[in-house]
């Protein structure tokens, strides 16, 4: 499903060159739930951004769903992200000026869908995360756990094959974290969605199929 070959990422400034990722080779199978762990600054988020085509590697190749991504234009990358990938972030990244339903509809705005279809799909996604009764609320009126569930609904509304979650439980207490984790596990089991999750939490990581550890930009497990 996802293949990373010899990925390297170097951040350069005028004076310093930082190697964020070094020779990462990784295969993620369809329907797999993979977690990435490592200390702060080891390159976990950088790796997730590269898998999510939000950042380009300095070296190496990525293919997703048997499609090489290194020669895609900005427009093709955007379409690829829109159709194949769903993102969940630690800090939710909800637009506070939009209601829950509008936040969830966001990925569908960049597709050829009617307003009616968008509303139907977004409501469906919110039902899956148990927030169908909060569609008219604004994100600021929700708890952290509820916000993250809205973010999950937004990630799944376009029915992507892959979900990339960057510390989805990082800002939540353990009960709420478990709730979110249950939703992700259910998505993986019931819908066959491939999930790559960055986490600091050993307990959460152990609930996934496979764990990859990074240290100083290199894969150690």
């Amino acid at each position: 499903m996802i293949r990373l070959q010899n990925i390297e990422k170097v951040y350069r400034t005028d004076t310093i060159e930082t190697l964020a990722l070094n020779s990462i080779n990784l295969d993620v199978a369809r329907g797999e739930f993979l977690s990435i762990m490592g200390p702060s600054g080891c390159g976990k988020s950088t790796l997730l951004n590269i898998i999510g085509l939000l950042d380009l590697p300095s070296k190496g190749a990525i293919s997703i769903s048997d499609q090489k991504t290194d020669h895609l234009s900005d427009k093709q990358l955007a379409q690829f992200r829109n159709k194949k990938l769903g993102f969940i972030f630690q800090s939710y990244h909800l637009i506070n000026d939009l209601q829950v339903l509008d936040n969830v509809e966001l990925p569908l705005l960049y597709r050829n869908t009617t307003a009616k279809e968008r509303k139907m799909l977004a409501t469906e996604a919110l039902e899956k995360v148990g927030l169908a009764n909060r569609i008219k609320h604004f994100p600021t009126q929700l708890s952290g756990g509820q916000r993250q569930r809205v973010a999950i609904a937004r990630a799944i509304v376009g029915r992507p094959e892959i979900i990339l979650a960057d510390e989805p439980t990082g800002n939540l207490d353990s009960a709420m974290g478990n709730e979110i984790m249950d939703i992700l596990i259910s998505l993986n089991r019931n819908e066959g969605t491939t999930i790559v999750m960055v986490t600091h939490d050993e307990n959460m990581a152990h609930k996934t199929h496979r764990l990859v550890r990074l240290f100083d930009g290199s894969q150690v497990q």
Partner: protein
Amino acid sequence: MFKHLFKLIWNKKKQNFLLLTEMLFSFLVLFAVFSMLVYYYTNYKKPMGFDYNNAWLVTYNNTNKTQNTDSLNLYYQILQKMMKAMPEVKEVSFCSDNVPLSNYTNGGSVMNGKLTVGTNKYTVDDNYDKAFNTQLLEGRWLNKSDAVGKYPAVVINSNLKEELFGDATAVGKIITDDYKKSKMRVIGVIQGLKVKGDYAPSGNAVYFRVDTGSFHWIGSIIVKVKPMANAAFEARLYKTMANYMKDSNISIEHFTNKRTQINYMSLVPMMVMSIVGCFLIINVALGLFGVLWYNINKRRGEIGLRRAVGATGHSVSVQLIMESMILATMSLIIGTFFAVQFPLLNVFNLSASIYVMAILLSIVFIYLLVFLCSLYPGRQAAAIYPAVALHEE
């Protein structure tokens, strides 16, 4: 997408209020400036209605103390003949002091039945039309035969004719002087003369014929000269007149110079308003630019998110420009509501077409300004790298 943006703007109405107000006031100031410019331009495009080239204005004080009207008439007829005898002179015409391109006015009103219309009143002689080469549209100009008749003969201009009689013919109609309540017979219609310069409207005008008593108070002579007339001739003319009319304080002015002077009086406020308008526009442009740039920096997380969920750099840029345009549209709707009151309530008595044109120009200008001010911040937003923006948030 449009509905989505509208929702976003509506939900941020408090934050957008100042920007909306700024655009609204810019629109209103622009509307004022454009109304004035369109008004001046509309007037400028219209024909002058008279030929001021090679026309001189001679002003004098009547120092002839005779109380005998016939003697006085004869005195000025001789002067007229003396002047016309000069080879450089084409025409000589006595008239009241409110000559074209001067600051003097003599206003009043005339009535057609119950319809009362304000107008300027001019007392002129039979040569006035030839001195200024006015354009006759109906009937004829004043002549000796008008000295007798049941009602005094008058010539009116096309503007007054339009207001009094519409499309109907004016010649032969009887009108009434509102002040004296005396009746007058219209014998001709001439094209309106732009007596206050290129940028002013011609206004309404009634031309009365000089009568036997007029020379007691008349103090202006229009002299139409041939192109060969030079400074030496001007000196000779002055000397001839000064010798004939002792201590009459004679002065000679060229109508071309008077036109330049009177045009300044219109141009100065126009330039002042335009400069003030320009400063305001620069301020608004900088303000808009700054606010939009600030907004983009504040919304880097949102921009990063949109990129992550499928927006291209171009669509992010277009979205931000569209948001500004929607905001501009909202302020323009409010602004236009206020602006249309001017033609509806006939404020300043200007034609509705001037206001409509000013509204359209202001709308186009505001849209253009907002578009240009959004363009660069929009491009900056498109260049934001999603991973960086999401990480910063």
